[in-house]
């Protein structure tokens, strides 16, 4: 009798754990439900070419707002996104990571190119002047405020919100990740949104 109960327990333990590994989308990021069409924009990439968000359909896009003179937190986030890219393996071909600079005054295309490509050669740095940038920041709810640093050789810094925005393969804004979200959590959600595009195999 006791043996049978334990056999059942073992079986149950196996099922629970295997289930945790594979099926059931358990989202790690904050999910936007219902999904909204991602506010579209056309910015200039670090090669001087136009980059239109809605033309990235077919790929999952991870958007991050930052600036190249941010040597501490922004690189930590971009390093995480580079790790996400590595973890995804071949599926990363359908991932586009883009950094939108909040500091167009200092972040020239050359500088953005050096900055983002140090993390991953496929990452794109995007810039636009403040007038074009302002409505985009508003639509994505990005907080950014220039702050003078008297006495620092840096001159000024930009206080900013540090979320990563996930746009799905159909151009819909689906999820937000807080700064410092573990790499495995982002990978898990990106994988889901890439699979979802396949349609039939929901998991």
């Amino acid at each position, binding site marked *: 009798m*006791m*043996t049978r109960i*334990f*056999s059942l*327990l*073992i079986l149950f*333990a*196996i099922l629970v*754990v*295997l289930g*945790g*590994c594979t099926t059931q989308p358990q989202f790690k990021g904050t999910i936007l439900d219902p999904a909204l069409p991602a506010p579209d924009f056309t910015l200039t990439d670090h090669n001087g070419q136009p980059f239109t968000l809605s033309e990235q359909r077919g790929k999952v896009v991870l958007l991050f707002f930052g600036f*190249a*003179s*941010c*040597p*501490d*937190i922004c*690189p*930590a986030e*971009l*390093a995480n996104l580079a790790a996400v890219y590595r*973890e995804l393996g071949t599926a990363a071909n359908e991932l586009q990571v883009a950094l939108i600079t909040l500091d167009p*005054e*200092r972040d*020239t295309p*050359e*500088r953005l190119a*050096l*900055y983002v490509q*140090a*993390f991953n050669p496929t990452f794109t740095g995007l810039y636009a002047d403040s007038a074009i940038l302002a409505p985009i920041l508003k639509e994505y709810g990005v*907080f950014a405020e220039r*702050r003078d*640093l008297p*006495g*620092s*050789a*840096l*001159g000024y*810094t930009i*206080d*900013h*919100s*540090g*979320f990563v925005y996930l746009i799905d393969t159909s151009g819909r804004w689906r999820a937000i990740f*807080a*700064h*410092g979200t573990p790499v*495995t959590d982002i990978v898990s959600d990106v994988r889901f949104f890439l699979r979802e595009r396949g349609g039939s195999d929901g998991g």
Partner: protein
Amino acid sequence: MYRLLAMITTMIIILALSACATTPTASPESAPAVTLGNLTISEPWVRAASASATTNSMSSDSHSSMSMSATTAGYMTIRNSSAEPDFLIAAAVTDLAEAVELHTSTTENGVMRMRQVERIEIPAQGGVELKPGGFHIMLIGLKRDLKPDETVRLTLTFERSGTVEVSAVVRKP
């Protein structure tokens, strides 16, 4: 029998859970800890970065050269075995950056802020970790690229313990 089955169940769960988990990446080699009086400085590292290709093109115009400058940050753990606190008050490099400053980053309500600080406290009988998202040594206006695996010399000055030089490993960004 009872105990054996319980153990098997536990083992299966542990095995299965470890199969789910990702393997941690090995941390790069770091230089041995350096001591200075009651202070121990361990695992100093600097984030790799590219100096801007056009840094020197307008050297006569200080604003332009500043606005083009590339930055990076240095990190380490400092322990203090003394009964008195000490303070990191300055850091310096030779021929590597135009300025070296002490900064801190904070994240509050999702907003990331970076501020210059005058000094970083190393508490008595305690320690402080300079790490991404917190205290860091900021190198402003890089004069050359910093490539992974090279080492750079950092000179640290403490209020009580004085000055020491450490070798920091350059790591991938």
